[in-house]
């Protein structure tokens, strides 16, 4: 009986040691919360270490008590049960003693947590304000002071790549040493944005705005993902933050501004575009915005995302096609692209869709047609 129990205990220990051993063998293993790289996550990290330490101490005490009881109070060792134990002074007062001790621990955690919470929820003046919009399944970052907009899509990599599902085409670029305010919202369903190293999570809600902030202390690339189930692509929308020095950030900002101005000028010009130009441009827009659902072959996913190849809309009248792209289809994952893309981009992607796969309409939709359809 005793031997068997010892054997079982040994087996448990072996299993645990085996797990840890397998884990330690890997150099880049993480057992703890990712190391912080901003003022606010540093504060949270310290709080996390406080609660983890208290939790560990409590577990050690509880385990020690149980192990001692298992050792000392065994029937097989002739232990005599103390039938009056619950009636002695301890039995009468434990109901006060235990809660008082637990309350003491609770309050020490709560007071420390409460002050950290106040910093997380503070609304001091920010140097940079970024609006973060979650949509199925990408992030859009808008620098509200500069009119810069960055659309951030998953970079397709092989499952063996170290950055598989963790990298995007355009990361969010932020300066170090500045207070950055984030305004979070969503264009469709709930999403949740954050990156444990630099910014704690907040949920993004369609129709509402949430706020959080950071002040990054170290340059580097920080990775998070969407943390609220948002449907089929939930696993595939990483949030990547690239923190650079304030000088580099200024350069990047100037460059983005001039690019944005150029694109806007191009889109509003009266130029009549050729079909091939539009198709080439449209393919870029499609890859960035549409491919996640409708797929590269335009066949969608049967039963979930409709095919564009040979579809009634993409092969039908131009007006209907524009209408669907600009206004979306309410109640489904098909977003309204009108506010997100400019006239040229919509014209290009519609032209691309009408002249790809099994679609051979030969139409070349012009930006002015889009303007008229809006």
């Amino acid at each position: 009986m005793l031997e068997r129990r010892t054997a079982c205990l040994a087996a448990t220990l072996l299993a645990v040691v085996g797990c840890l051993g397998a884990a330690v063998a890997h150099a880049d293993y993480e057992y703890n919360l990712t190391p912080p790289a901003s003022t606010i996550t540093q504060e949270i990290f310290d709080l996390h270490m406080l609660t983890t330490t208290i939790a560990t101490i409590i577990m050690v005490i509880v385990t020690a008590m149980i192990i001692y009881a298992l050792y000392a109070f065994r029937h097989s060792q002739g232990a005599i049960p103390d039938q009056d134990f619950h009636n002695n002074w301890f039995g009468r007062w434990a109901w006060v003693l235990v809660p008082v001790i637990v309350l003491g621990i609770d309050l020490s955690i709560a007071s420390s947590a409460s002050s950290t919470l106040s910093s997380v929820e503070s609304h001091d003046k920010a140097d940079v304000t970024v609006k973060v919009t979650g949509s199925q399944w990408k992030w859009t970052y808008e620098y509200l002071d500069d009119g810069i907009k960055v659309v951030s899509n998953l970079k397709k990599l092989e499952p063996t790549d170290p950055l598989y599902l963790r990298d995007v085409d355009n990361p969010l670029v932020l300066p170090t040493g500045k207070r950055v305010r984030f305004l979070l919202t969503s264009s469709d369903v709930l999403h949740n944005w954050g990156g444990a190293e630099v910014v704690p999570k907040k949920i993004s809600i369609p129709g509402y705005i949430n706020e959080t902030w950071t002040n990054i202390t170290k340059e580097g690339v920080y990775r998070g993902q969407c943390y609220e189930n948002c449907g089929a692509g939930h696993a595939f929308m990483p949030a990547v933050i690239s923190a650079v020095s304030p000088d580099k950030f200024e350069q990047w900002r100037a460059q983005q501004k001039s690019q944005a101005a150029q694109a806007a000028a191009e889109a509003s010009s009266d130029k009549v575009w050729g079909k091939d130009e539009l198709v080439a441009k449209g393919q870029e827009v499609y890859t960035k915005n549409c491919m996640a659902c409708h797929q590269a072959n335009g066949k969608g996913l049967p039963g979930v995302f409709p095919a564009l190849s040979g579809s009634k809309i993409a092969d039908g009248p131009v007006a209907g096609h524009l209408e669907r792209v600009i206004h979306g289809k309410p109640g489904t994952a098909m977003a309204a692209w009108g506010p997100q893309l400019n006239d040229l981009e919509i014209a290009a992607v519609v032209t691309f869709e009408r002249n790809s796969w099994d679609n051979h309409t030969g139409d070349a939709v012009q930006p002015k047609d889009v303007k008229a359809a809006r």
Partner: protein
Amino acid sequence: MSGAVTAHDDHHDHGPPKGWQRWLYSTNHKDIGTMYLFFSLFMLFFGGAMAMYIRAELFMPGVQLASPNFYNNMVTDHALVMVFGMVMPAAAGMANWMIPMMIGAPDMALPRLNNLSFWLLPAAALMLVLSIVAPYIFPNGGTPVNTGWTLLPPLSKQVGIGMDFTIFAIHLLGVSSILASINIVTTILNMRAPGMTLMKMPLFVWSWFFTGLLLIAVMPVLAGAVTMLLFDRHFGTSFFDAAGGGDPILFQHLFWFFGHPEVYVLLLPSIGVLGLVIPTFSRKPLFGYKSLVWGMAFLAALGMVVWAHHQYTIGMSLAATNYFMIGTILISIPVGLMLLNFIFTMWRGSMTFETPMLFGIAIILMFSFAGVTGVMLAVVPADMQYHDTMFVVAHFHYALIPGAVFGLYAGVFYWLPKWTGHMYDERLGKIFFWWTTISFNITFFPQHFLGLAGMPRRIVDYSVQYTDFNMISSIGGFLFGLSHLLFLYIIIKTIRGGEKAPAKPWEGAQIGTAGLEWTLPSPPPFHSFTEAPVVR
């Protein structure tokens, strides 16, 4: 199956009807209890199969087995099946079997209602199965139910017809558990034998009293929330749509107003089982019986006003967040009191280590662990880092598997001799205990590390850095799943035969507030008490 409850009819009254009528028309608390237990055993394997699929998919990076939507459908239904189909019916089955016998009642207070509350369950299960297959069998069935068990809009508005089946399944399950709770609370208040005062009731009866009250209070809120969702989906209302003046977060408040007390609905019956198992095998009375009863009352009351700790990242006001944080941390007071009372019950006792006791001790340890990770999660700023990661998954599986499921296993082994009249195979029981406990820890312990490293929950595919812990977790998961075949074998073996169980097995170790079930033979007669026993 009928071997389990064959009537040993020493009384003059009629035995059970024969054949299918005995079960379909049953108003006997033992027969209905048996049906509940078999139903939950079936659902255990149904929900377990989904878990096996989930762990297989997460074995390595890449989407190997099915589409992301199917994966999230399985995540959703694994939770719904395990919560509503497995743990709650198993606890209700034990309540049906044991409470009337413990308090000396002839049967449940409302036997026909009892029949209805059971037979709603298979209908609800059918609805759940339909919600899974609907997208494939109906034209334009739409997306599978890929929302997770919280069914949060707006995502749940994008889902196809499967969501409507899920909503109706929840309605049926809700009606079933409200009726069962009304019945149990009524039985406890009105059907006690003379002399069985409230403070003499076994802890299991008390635990179900609070469970019943909680269910009656919160189930209607869930029913209301999903009905509002149904209206938003089909009848043009916009309770949860900002474009129509609604708020998606309202659903979260309604859901978790139900969802958090639901956690205690799952936990309390198992705490009640522990309150019987630990004193029995320590051979001394329960330590702090009164404080356990009041602790459960406090836990139930506090549990109803801390729901928003499931939604710390929604952007509440600072004052509200502080309130929910401190309220949640205070839950450690009744829980800590309960667990320490169990340790003090073992203290200066004379312990033997039969299967129920092994589970009892393991529960105290592992549930304490869930408790301390719970306090870590209760701390709002830290939760903003843990929120929706695998750390949360690890935490609530540590809370619900030891806290609820292992408690039920302890109950099954504790009462199998009473139910069947046969002792279970102690050697196999112990093998089952070590097998499940070790494989459970291999499955869920590494998930804490995954969560701290930032792996979100409800994702079908993950990046390479999370591979090794996920592999360990999956291997543990398969072993954990496999161990339940042994569980099934032990139960079947015990029903079919074995050493005859005395009225009071384990040399009559049941001491203190153990209840009147041990005064009856094993198995008890079809009608337990024809005359009310008197408790001195």
